[in-house]
């Protein structure tokens, strides 16, 4: 008899292809765009091979860079490009593959859309087959686009092929990982969260191994270290890719096996139960707001804290290194004294992350409203302003807490490696000086969510991206100072003098933004999940 398990795969595939175009475009183009930006930024940086070699030698001396990126295999432009983009590309590809896979395999079931489809002339394994084909095809197309881009920029074909194949295989591996977790958990968020957690664990293993130049057993285990086994532009030992292909296939087979063993809508791991009664204090918007924000705030604090500590720890090393290298030192010189320059720059980069946290926290408020949970609350005596304040509070206090953690962690790390303990207050105050600029960003997000609820989230992130784009263009000398200084973050860029005036004006601006946001929300219709 004909095997009907995969019947309807083609139709499903066409159906899935019609959705998520923006995500897929990014997935297809991200590595190619990273190649373009890396090549075009490295070529003007180094006039001669000696300069490049010197830069590489200095970089290897810096344990922070080595831990994040590993050592450079080949001291030339192709080697530098491959080394620079490999980790970011794999992370991006991994996340997109996982999201695509869990969305189709679990999200569809969760929203019971799958039930409608499955009751039609669709085989039991058709969604699995369609999503697998979707991911595989997208990864291959992505590989071809990246390969073409690398060739177009004049990178050697062999190394380019090795790197692109690594991306394709890595992407597929994460897709099949997502397929497995989709079988295990009954909620999409948990399935994608678990798979992304594994991705994070893989990265952490490579992070710990990057400081050793040799490959050990762990290197074979994490895809983030495979770069050093395959060695693009430095031997191109592509044979190992077969192991990657095999693991992806085995994972996919396991997922298929698990899928055959479970019912539609069910998972293999059952979620934990919780308390029958709420804690006595769980009685108002503040308690609920805390429950909703504390997890993510804590995660951000830990991640930023750990990285800050690491950066603080290598600061002395980096500043010594900078002093030895004349060209880099003169460039870094604009950020301050040699021992401060590196920290100032890093602190600013962290400020961007904290600003992103502020927008995310404001976005959570919007999600509560758009998903219809605010409706239940505002049907009780809870006031609109109180509900809003319980979320807005985290866009105000959250960044303050994060910047304090960052400041303390950098200062602590710096003190550990022999930096003066007296720097503590100076670093902390430098960190907290950025606060009003972040409040202004959150304030803009809150205002937009109040006045234009339907597009507020998208607008906030677009504006944030625009500000960063302005910063990049200004750094390249394309945009004048005035343009950059119009953005809140431009005001606290390391080259700007720290002034009480700036701090106060940005604080006042934030207060106005928040106030108008509150008034706007108080007077508008609540957004509804379903409007009749």
């Amino acid at each position, binding site marked *: 008899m004909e095997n009907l398990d995969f019947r309807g795969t083609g139709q499903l595939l066409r159906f899935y292809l019609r959705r998520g175009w923006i995500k897929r475009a990014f997935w297809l183009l991200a590595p190619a765009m990273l190649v373009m930006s890396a090549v075009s930024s490295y070529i003007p940086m180094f006039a001669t091979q000696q300069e490049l070699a010197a830069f590489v030698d200095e970089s290897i001396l810096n344990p922070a860079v080595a831990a994040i990126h590993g050592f450079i295999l080949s001291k030339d432009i192709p080697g530098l490009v491959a080394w620079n983009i490999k980790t970011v590309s794999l992370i991006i590809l991994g996340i997109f593959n996982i999201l695509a896979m869990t969305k189709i395999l679990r999200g569809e079931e969760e929203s019971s859309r799958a039930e409608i489809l499955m009751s039609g002339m669709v085989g039991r394994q058709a969604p699995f087959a369609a999503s697998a084909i979707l991911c595989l095809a997208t990864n291959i197309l992505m590989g071809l686009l990246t390969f073409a881009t690398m060739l177009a920029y004049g990178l050697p074909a062999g190394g380019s092929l090795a790197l692109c194949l690594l991306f394709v295989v890595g992407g597929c591996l994460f897709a099949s990982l997502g397929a497995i977790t989709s079988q295990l958990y009954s909620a999409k968020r948990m399935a994608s969260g678990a798979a992304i957690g594994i991705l994070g664990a893989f990265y952490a293993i490579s992070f710990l191994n990057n400081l050793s130049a040799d490959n050990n057993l762990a290197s074979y285990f994490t895809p983030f270290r495979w770069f050093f086994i395959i060695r693009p532009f430095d031997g191109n030992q592509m044979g190992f890719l077969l192991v990657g292909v095999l693991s992806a296939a085995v994972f996919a087979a396991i997922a298929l096996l698990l899928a055959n063993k479970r019912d539609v809508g069910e998972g293999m791991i059952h979620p934990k139960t919780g308390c029958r*009664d709420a804690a006595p204090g769980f*009685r108002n918007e503040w308690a609920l707001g805390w429950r909703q924000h504390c997890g993510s705030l804590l995660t951000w604090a830990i991640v930023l804290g750990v990285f800050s500590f690491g950066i603080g720890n290598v600061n002395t090393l980096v500043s010594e290194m900078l002093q030895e290298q004349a060209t880099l030192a003169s460039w870094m010189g604009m950020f301050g004294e040699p021992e401060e320059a590196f920290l100032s720059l890093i602190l600013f980069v962290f400020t961007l992350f904290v600003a992103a946290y502020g927008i995310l926290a404001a976005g959570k408020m919007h999600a509560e409203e758009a998903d219809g949970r605010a409706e239940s609350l505002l049907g009780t005596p809870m006031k609109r302003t109180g509900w809003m304040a319980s979320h807005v509070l985290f866009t105000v206090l959250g960044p303050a807490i994060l910047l304090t953690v960052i400041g303390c962690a950098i200062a602590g790390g710096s003190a550990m490696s022999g930096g003066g303990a007296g720097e503590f207050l100076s670093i902390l105050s430098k960190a907290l000086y950025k606060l009003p600029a972040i409040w202004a960003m959150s304030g803009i997000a809150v205002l937009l969510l109040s006045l234009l609820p339907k597009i507020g989230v998208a607008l906030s992130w677009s504006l944030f991206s625009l500000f960063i784009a302005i910063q990049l263009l200004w750094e390249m000398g394309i945009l004048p100072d005035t343009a950059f200084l119009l953005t809140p973050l431009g005001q606290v860029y390391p080259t700007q003098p720290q002034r009480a005036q700036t701090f106060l004006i940005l604080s006042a601006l934030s207060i106005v933004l928040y106030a108008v946001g509150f008034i706007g929300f108080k007077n508008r219709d609540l957004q509804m999940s379903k409007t009749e």
Partner: protein
Amino acid sequence: MSVIEVRDLKKNYGTVRALNGLNLDVHEGEVFGFIGPNGAGKTTTIRILLGLLRKSGGQATLFGGDVWKDASPLHKRLAYIPSEVNLWPMLTGGEVIDLLARLRGRLDTKRKSELLERFQLDPTKKCKTYSKGNRQKVAIISAFISDVELLILDEPTSGLDPLMELQFQDCIMAAKKEGKTVFLSSHILSEVEKLCDRISIIKAGKIVESNSMAELRHLTRTHFTVETKKPIQASDLANIQGLYDVKVKDGKISFSIEADAIDGALHCLSNFGVRSLISNPPTLEELFMRHYSA
């Protein structure tokens, strides 16, 4: 006294007019049915009553207070079940029930246990694992747990199984006995027919029919199917006014008849020797269809 009073209520979403001069009067202590199909404006009306949406025109008051300006104090006196119950994925059902009850006032733990038992809800599960029916139960329990004067229920039973629907109806009856006012929006006509003292039918943002159930029954036609000893023809009843849809089949005659004409028709029928008679009371469905099929 009117608990809910709505006069000429209008609501526009951009250029779309959702409510077009709606009037409502809900009296203290009654169960009021608000019926209409999806998209007629039921949920919009309720959301305006709760101060979640701004009205575009007209007046709306709860307990005499302005629904927008006095929203927070008014909400102390009512409990609300939204049509689409969305809960916090990481909280358990029990925690949500406690939170909502505490927001409305005091949490009655004994009543909570009773209601959990009655609706057979496992309160230790996280909300993300609940089915639609179970989420609905969380909302129903949170509404009935509070001692409030008014219950505003927007299609509260849409995800419940028949057994739970019965439990829900019991709770409504009990609330009515305690003198509470219930505003029940629904499109499940059998439920409305069973529970409500008065109803309003909404169509395209306007009330097209508003009456007590008893009155409505009187206004609508009763359906008869009669078997007689002597064969009967449709023409035999031709001179009776208020008789409709007369059909003769297998020696039985069936027709719909207005309340005032029943007596005359029975006299006429008895001449043919009535062997059996089935009478179906007018249904809300009939009335509803009359407004909507036109």
